């Protein structure tokens, strides 16, 4: 993990106060308060349709809040540039007509000199273990490999905030565990703030410093996960926390 990605800028804090959002119908988010300290790995879980993606899109700047305030960067800090916040989607969303290398370069800020673009893209591809596939078309990759390229594209600008919207949802169990390890590894090396939306409570508990349950547009449960890293699969403390969150999610349904 040393090399290009080491020594990156530290994470950025996110602060939401009374954030509301609707799409012309009933409110999707309302009166949402949430503080994400710089460098934290936060996982957001919640029932389908509870507004997780919407929250993430607000944080990533793809949509504007309908009410309240959303601040990225600590007090007295300038808002970070656009390429400091990156969003990884559930689907890889690679450009099929661009080589894997070019797809990673999409993540670089405009105005990056061409020579540097190549070097940075190559280095980031190496970080996700695909250095030797740089010249190929995305269509030849497996689902897990595509998602790795998408991760490289999100990381190549060395973001200070990485928002992940169920990026591993479509992967098989084994690939998923590998990808989780990769995401955790990169996060630890880079120190960015990570916000992971996931359906998988076990994944949330295994990766995050803190898990937030979203319900009816608000934070329904806010749990720190104090288990030290590296975490072991099937750790009893993790299992207990997972059970607690699942109970809460199931209770919401009634």
């Amino acid at each position, binding site marked *: 993990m040393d090399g290009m990605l080491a020594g990156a800028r530290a994470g950025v804090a996110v602060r939401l106060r009374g954030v509301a959002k609707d799409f012309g119908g009933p409110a999707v988010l309302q009166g949402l308060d949430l503080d994400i300290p710089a460098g934290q790995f936060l996982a957001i879980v919640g029932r389908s349709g509870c507004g997780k993606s919407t929250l993430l899109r607000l944080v990533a700047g793809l949509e504007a809040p309908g009410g309240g305030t959303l601040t990225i960067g600590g007090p007295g800090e300038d808002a970070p540039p656009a390429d400091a916040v990156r969003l990884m989607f559930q689907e890889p969303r690679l*450009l*099929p007509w661009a080589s894997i290398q070019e797809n990673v370069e999409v993540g670089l800020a405009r105005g990056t000199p061409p020579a540097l673009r190549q070097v940075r893209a190559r280095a980031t591809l190496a970080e996700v273990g695909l250095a030797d596939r740089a010249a190929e078309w995305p269509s030849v990759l497996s689902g897990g490999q595509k998602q790795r390229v998408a991760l490289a594209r999100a990381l190549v600008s060395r973001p200070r905030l990485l928002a992940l919207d169920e990026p591993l949802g479509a992967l098989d169990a084994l690939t998923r565990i590998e990808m989780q390890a990769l995401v955790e590894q990169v996060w630890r090396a880079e120190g960015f703030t990570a916000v992971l939306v996931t359906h998988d409570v076990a994944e949330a508990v295994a990766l995050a410093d803190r898990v937030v349950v979203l319900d009816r547009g608000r934070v329904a449960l806010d749990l720190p996960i104090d288990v030290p890293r590296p975490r072991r699969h099937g750790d009893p403390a993790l299992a207990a926390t997972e059970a607690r969150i699942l109970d809460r999610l199931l209770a919401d349904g009634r």
Partner: protein
Amino acid sequence: MSEAILSTREAAPRPALSWRGPARAALPWLLPALLLLAWQAGSMAGWIAEEVLPAPSAVVAAGWTLAQSGALAENIRVSAWRALTGFAIGGGLGLALGFLTGLSRLGERLLDSSVQMLRNIPHLALIPLVILWFGIDEAAKLFLVALGSFFPVYVNTMHGVRSVDPQLMEMGRAYGMDGPTLFRRVVLPGALPSVFVGIRYALGIMWLTLIVAETIAANSGIGYMAMHAREFMLTDIVVFSILVYALLGKLADSVARLLERLCLSWNPAYRGA
């Protein structure tokens, strides 16, 4: 690659499938060659009247004479110029308007229903009117070819732009692409397969239009060459002209296919083969 496939076939228990390379390549030509032989034999035996269908050898001889006199090259030059110029005008306009209506709702509201109404008029039905407007000038042929090539390119370009994956558009925006970059990196390549469908279709219409236009109203070009020969009952030249048209049409399509393969090499559907 193909050798590997051949050798596995040779090893297969069915010897009927074990074609040698050249024999397999020649197979599609077997039927046309037999037909040609039968035709030649029929003509030589006097079973096929020369005024109906001249012998292949006569057609080749007519072509040779035309080529030597320079008339062939000149007529091909005139026809190709008409075809390509008309196509460039019509196709270019179709491309521009297709992108306009595909990208902007305002453009669509303003233009699309008018264009769709015009599209329902068979452009060849306009020939009498076009002759009234332009006489049998170059402009008449260019107008018809341009009109014929316009619609397929327009419709397919617009459809291509519309069918660009919205998730990729969102990704582009989320990763900081501005309008022109988004167009160049996402919209244009995404619409290209459909644009090529339009172009290839338009190329077919282009030749068809030109054949009709040159046959009815022209004093140069391959169509004129054929009509002129008909007046003197020179069936060999008529048949030869038809062959030239077929070859030119095939050539245009091959060039388009080649471009398609080059531009869409990222797409598994266009790779190889």
